């Protein structure tokens, strides 16, 4: 009765850097509207996993089955053409980079940055594109008057909001976020987290968030993968994993949080 569409199905995903293990034997499912967090210390393989999932590197082994069309069976991303993969990246996925400089064109205005993903949807009408860009800036709580300003002059928090506007504007099925609040100060971080939560709740988009900040993960995600040395050591509902950790590493992780 409680049935949701499966967006992503990862099976035995493994990636080696030469002899070195990047991530190993990772399997999980992601359903429509679900937000998955991946936590673990630096070097635990979080970013490698994210890069494999988002098509930035090809995994050594395993399958990443993605729902391209709801009426069709899931397709293995490792087997589709680069062209198809790039077209998915432009529309169906989005990657919110840790460093907004990697996700934005700094010499293109805020509006132009958002426009790039909208134009991909075959809209070739200037006013429509501009209105849609304004709409998205509003949703991510950016000042609309800054639509023609260049992101190079934006604060870190604003750049992050712009990245999110840009990506959500194409109405993606799946959004990847790599440390979305890394490098932001606490008050900016809190506001950004609010915005993400509110938007995501409305859009019913699926997300995978990589973070080493357990507070961020607790706030944003539904379920969690805990990684250590390239492997998933524990997974489950976020509040369950954090409140009742089973694995010794997770227990260490949760007991390391400083109480304010």
């Amino acid at each position: 009765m409680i049935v949701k569409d499966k967006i992503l199905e990862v099976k035995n995903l493994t990636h080696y850097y030469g002899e070195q293990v990047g991530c190993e034997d990772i399997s999980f499912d992601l359903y429509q509207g679900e937000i998955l967090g991946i936590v673990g210390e630096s070097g635990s393989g979080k970013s490698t996993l994210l890069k494999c999932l988002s098509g930035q590197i090809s995994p050594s082994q395993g399958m990443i089955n993605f729902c391209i069309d709801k009426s069709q069976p899931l397709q293995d991303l490792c087997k589709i053409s680069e062209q198809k993969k790039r077209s998915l990246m432009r529309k169906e996925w989005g990657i919110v980079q840790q460093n907004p400089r990697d996700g934005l064109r700094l010499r293109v205005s805020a509006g132009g940055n958002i426009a790039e993903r909208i134009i991909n949807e075959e809209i070739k009408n200037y006013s429509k594109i501009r209105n849609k860009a304004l709409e998205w800036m509003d949703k991510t709580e950016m000042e609309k008057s800054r639509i023609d300003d260049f992101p190079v002059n934006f604060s870190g928090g604003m750049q992050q909001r712009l990245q999110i506007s840009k990506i959500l504007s194409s109405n993606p099925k799946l959004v990847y976020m790599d440390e979305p609040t890394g490098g932001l100060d606490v008050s900016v971080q809190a506001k950004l987290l609010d915005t993400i939560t509110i938007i995501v709740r409305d859009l019913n988009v699926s997300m995978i968030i990589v973070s080493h900040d357990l507070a961020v993960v607790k706030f944003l995600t539904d379920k969690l993968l805990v990684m250590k040395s390239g492997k998933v050591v524990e997974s489950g509902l976020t509040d369950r994993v954090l409140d009742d950790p089973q694995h010794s590493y997770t227990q260490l992780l949760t007991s390391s949080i400083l109480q304010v």
Partner: protein
Amino acid sequence: MIDGFNFAYLDEATKRMIRRTILKAICIPGYQCPFGGREMPLAYGWGTGGIQVTASIIGINDTLKVIDQGADDTTNAISIKNFFKKVCKIETTEDTEKATIIQTRHRIPEKKLSENQILVYQVPQPEPLRRLEPKEQETRKLHAYEEYALMHVKLYEEISHFGSVIKTYAYPVRTNKRYITDPSPTPKFDNPKMDFMEALQLFGAGRERRIYAIPPYTSVQSLDFEDHPFQIQTWDERCDICGSNNSYLDEIIINDKGEKKFICSDTNYCEKNLKT
């Protein structure tokens, strides 16, 4: 013809290599084909690409016209013409109709070209996406996969900042409904002439070592938005010399008081217009 040089300066093997590249370029309209560009006896930026293309296709019976900014009598045009006179002893002309090969920088002649003519462009930067995407590897993928949203972002930016598309030269076009092409630094006034032109259009970029082509009767569409359609420049003035009101006009400051005149940029067109 001066001694010690092959006909048309380049050796036969090089000319053949360039002609092969040209054939490939014609087969894939608008696609930038790499070629082994040679050192020419003049600096990059002075038309080395165009000269190599011309040198590879020119034959003993050809008549060459060279224009720079539309004019036959500018330094660059005359130098190139003299160069070919020296290395091939061919006929040169200023008359657009009589030329079989027209090498140009900046303009397409006002007179409609015909099937037995070839227009050779000197191209400084063949890659329309270069200023938007600095990585060559990535621009090639963008062309290969027809990911051209970025080009419209450029137009979007201009409308947002200036109210309209202000790019007046090298205005990007889509060739044969496929490749986005840079029409070299020609003014957008000439873009409509490229669409279904009867003459073959060849583009040579010496420094960037690229050749691309638009075969005769090929669709060439200027990019635009539905609500900001492509428009060419217009002038309220007429040519001060011939009185033409439908050619591309250059603005000339005639004295220190800042008084100015408008005259046709295409000198041959202007002369003929004056005679009739």
